[in-house]
């Protein structure tokens, strides 16, 4: 099986403090992953490393077998094959259509091709009716759906999601989950998502990674990690008995 990412000895240090330490792990291409773990476990840092936003202090990250380059001219070409949705999405001033089209525009897509792609993406997140509304006037759930549409409109090989449904109501959660599923069905892309919602991890992921203190504690299928965890700490976390 082809690996989208392979990490070996990856460490991130900030002010002499180790915030990420991954001995070895792989992310298979085309699979859906959920990363779970307590706050401060290093989940977001891992996503930032995968999205080229954070260069590891040490270690090696392979992207489809090639070493990931965090600077230089090739970095941009790699960056454009992936998309990330942040926990707090930044809306650029302009309407919803502009925000969703932005990635395509930055990638240099012709204006005539952008319209159809944006309309399609807005339909997936059920926001077609807000296309002409200012993105700065959206609710939290709508803004998160715009951010998802903006991420998936470029049809990325990799979709990285940092708690995309945190603090959202059930309807927005359902729409976002449906959009993620439909994206995966259509494009077979690799999806790596951080979530604190274990039910969501069960619904969306094929593999689950439990992290704590910057390291991967346990990784396996949904059944292995969420239903029959081997590690004592994972057991405590998934049962809700861990106090942190």
């Amino acid at each position: 099986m082809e690996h989208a990412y392979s990490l070996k000895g990856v460490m991130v240090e900030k002010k002499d403090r180790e915030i990420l330490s991954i001995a070895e792990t792989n992310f298979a291409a085309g699979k859906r992953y959920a990363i779970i773990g307590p706050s401060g476990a290093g989940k977001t840092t891992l996503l930032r490393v995968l999205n080229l936003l954070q260069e590891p202090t040490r270690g090696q990250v392979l992207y489809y077998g090639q070493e990931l380059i965090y600077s230089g001219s090739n970095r941009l070409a790699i960056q454009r094959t992936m998309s990330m949705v942040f926990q707090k999405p930044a809306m650029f001033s302009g309407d919803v259509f502009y925000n969703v089209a932005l990635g395509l525009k930055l990638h240099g897509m012709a204006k005539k091709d952008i319209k159809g792609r944006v309309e399609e993406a807005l339909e997936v997140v059920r926001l077609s009716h807000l296309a002409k509304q200012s993105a700065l006037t959206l609710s939290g759930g709508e803004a998160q759906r715009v951010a998802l549409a903006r991420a998936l409109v470029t049809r990325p090989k990799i979709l990285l999601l940092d708690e995309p449904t945190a603090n959202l109501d059930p309807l927005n959660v359902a729409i976002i989950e449906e959009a993620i599923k439909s994206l995966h069905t259509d494009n077979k892309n690799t999806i790596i998502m951080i979530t604190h919602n274990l039910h969501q991890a069960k619904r969306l992921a094929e593999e689950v990674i439990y992290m704590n203190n910057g390291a991967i504690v346990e990784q396996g299928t949904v059944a292995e990690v969420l239903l029959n965890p081997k590690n004592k700490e994972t057991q405590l976390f998934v049962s809700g008995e861990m106090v942190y």
Partner: protein
Amino acid sequence: MEGMWNSILDVLKLFLSGDQKLYEIIFLSLKVSFSAVLIGVLIGIPIGSFMGMVDFKGHKLMVILIYTLMGMPPVLAGVAIYLLLSANGPLGQWQLLFTPGAMIMAQVVLVTPIIAGLTMVAVRSRVKIFFESAVSLGANKVQIAWLITREAKNGIMAAVVTAFGRAIAEVGAVMLVGGNIENYTRVMTTSIILETRKGNFDLALGLGIVLLVISFLINGFLVAGVLPYLQRGEQV
């Protein structure tokens, strides 16, 4: 008191009747201030954007320098330009002293640090919010700079308005390098000084009110006309 109101009314009547002399002074004031702000925008916004986005060795020193220059006394700017343009100065052969060009140069010295400094602050406040989103969307360096600067447009507009306010109200530097020559380098502020020195306080006050009205109209245009247009955002 009655005399003062009469003078103010006289000036307003002159203003409304299209008095050629008064309008020449107003137009020169606007020409000098607009030109200085335009040049200040072209120099100050790129400097401010760069300073707001990029940390480099000596960045702090540059920030302190810009903040210091923001408070530069106009007379000092005037003296510096005077020395540069005087017959024995390094730019003496340009023969710009006591011309509107010299007045524009002096005002550029005053407004550019204001535009650069306030742009820097505005851009820096947007970097944290938009930088990673822009990178993640696949923007190259130029696109990142453009996106963040665009998001800082409210702050940049405030910088331009502040700079224009400083330019149109400035007197020390333009008096020094312009010389307040009638029909050539006389502007609103130097006229006010002249009338005050002549003892025509009421006329000076009236001119001051006209200056304020013009400033109000221009700022109104910038805030109510230009800013909403910018806030609409770019259409794809």
